[in-house]
């Protein structure tokens, strides 16, 4: 459980161009939730997630990890970072080792584990992202974009985090690569029960997977709730430069024309079922 209490973050202090990146953000992230963090570029979502594992220190406010303040003296940041795994945007750019397996070992090695445990964790993490032994000795730079990204994600998973934060994990991937990554993350969440925070600016991506959506706008939390609730504000979302999933618009248009369809429809499958029901159920 991570708890943010009135987090403020400003940078560029002292100069004329001071920027208030986060304004009084208070959030609770309970264990086991699958959360979508959404916001336009510059809304503060990347800054926010860097607070969660202590990479960026809040200007004011407090963050509690399992009830303990991470800013308290003697709190182990290294310990926190192994528990709150953060996968940056374009994580494949951080690969540096000569082969895939050694690179994935970097995280657990930094935790000071013994060699046996490190190897076991690396293997397990690579299995989780769907890369078998045949990739172990391949140079990460010879892999395709999607595979590189999976290696980088495995590098974080090998630390066995309780919370996994992914910053735009699908940026620059083709639809197939995108679905693969998201399906794998969803599987991890389902099977391991770990908390997942998925940062994205695409509603389409997250609507299918998450239990809860947090919308950031100008450094503040604009909406926080289950997808159905949040998408009901699709008009406000548009003013923030975001859009609800396309299917929401179809459903709203049909409702406006008088078709009796429920408005809490967020996925294509739900819409299909609802529309078929209205038009007579024949397929």
């Amino acid at each position, binding site marked *: 459980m991570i708890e943010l209490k009135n987090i403020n973050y400003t940078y560029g202090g002292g100069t004329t161009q001071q920027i208030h990146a986060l304004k009084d953000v208070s959030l609770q992230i309970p264990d086991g939730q699958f959360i979508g963090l959404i916001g336009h570029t510059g809304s503060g979502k990347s800054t926010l997630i860097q607070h969660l594992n202590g*990479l960026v220190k809040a200007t004011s406010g407090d963050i509690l990890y399992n009830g303990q303040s991470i800013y308290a003296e003697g709190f182990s940041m290294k310990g926190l970072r192994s528990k709150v795994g953060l996968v*940056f945007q374009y*994580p494949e750019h*951080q*690969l*540096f080792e000569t082969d895939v397996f050694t690179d994935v070992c*970097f*995280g657990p090695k930094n935790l000071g584990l013994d060699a046996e445990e490190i190897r076991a964790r690396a293997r397990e993490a690579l299995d989780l992202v769907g890369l078998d032994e045949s990739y172990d000795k391949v140079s990460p730079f010879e892999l395709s974009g999607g595979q590189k990204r999976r290696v980088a994600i495995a*590098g974080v998973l090998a630390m066995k985090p309780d919370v996994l934060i992914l910053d735009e994990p699908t940026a620059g991937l083709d639809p197939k690569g995108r679905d693969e990554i998201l399906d794998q993350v969803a599987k991890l969440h389902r099977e391991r029960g770990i908390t997942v925070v998925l940062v994205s600016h695409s509603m389409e991506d997250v609507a299918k997977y998450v239990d809860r959506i947090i919308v950031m706008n100008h450094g503040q939390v604009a909406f926080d709730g289950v997808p159905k609730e949040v998408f009901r504000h699709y008009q406000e979302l548009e003013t923030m430069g975001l859009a609800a999933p396309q299917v929401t618009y179809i459903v709203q248009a049909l409702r406006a024309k008088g078709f009796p369809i429920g408005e809490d429809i967020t996925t294509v499958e739900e819409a299909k079922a609802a529309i078929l029901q209205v038009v007579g159920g024949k397929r």
Partner: protein
Amino acid sequence: MIRDITIGQYYPADSLLHRLDPRVKLLGTLVFIVSLFIADSWLGYVLAAAFLALMIRLSNVPLKFMLRGLKAVMILLLISVGFNIFLTDGEHVLLEFWIIKITWEGVKQALFMGTRLIFLIMGSSLMTLTTTPNQLTDGLETGLGFLKKIHVPIHEIAMMMSIALRFIPILIEETDKIMKAQMARGADFETGGLIQKAKALVPILVPLFISSFRRATDLAMAMEARCYNGGDRTKMKPLKYETRDYITYVVFAIYLALMILVGRL
């Protein structure tokens, strides 16, 4: 720490110095540096100090900003001053102790050397503070254009310079990002001995190298796609001398003449 280095940084403001033609500033800086090496008396340094003070006044750059740049070269300054104090031989011995011998000549030499270095750094950073990197390379390209006659690829050199300068902030940002990403994987850059710290840099340097190469090929491709081939290009804003530029040239000429005169006395 990286932000403390003001050498090569631009300070946006509106002043006479900012508006001057970059060629004037380049040549002026050269003249100023030469004048510092001509000066070997107190009077010469006073004159140089007065001239520098006038220029700083005209530039609207806060003195505090300029002094911050000196901090970065403090160690270099201390080393050269130290060497001059201890290693200069002379007649008037002020202090002799074991193998250390401090002479009046040494102290004088050290003071001159220190002032010379400080003025040199302040003078050249004044140029970069008032000139954008683009103007600077433009000025170099046009100013050294005559070298084209003897087949020196001035345009290409200027282009490389401006690209290199343009990439500095990008690389700093990239370093910051990679550092954070590796810290998220438990990397530790602070603790450990020198060797351990050096080893800890590998996970930063390798990705940084790779990304610079990637950026370089991307840029090369983008330039080729727009048919860039060096060669003869016209400029949207060609450099043109104004009256104030000619006046400044005259001022610099007078200053140099005065310095030579003072040196002869």
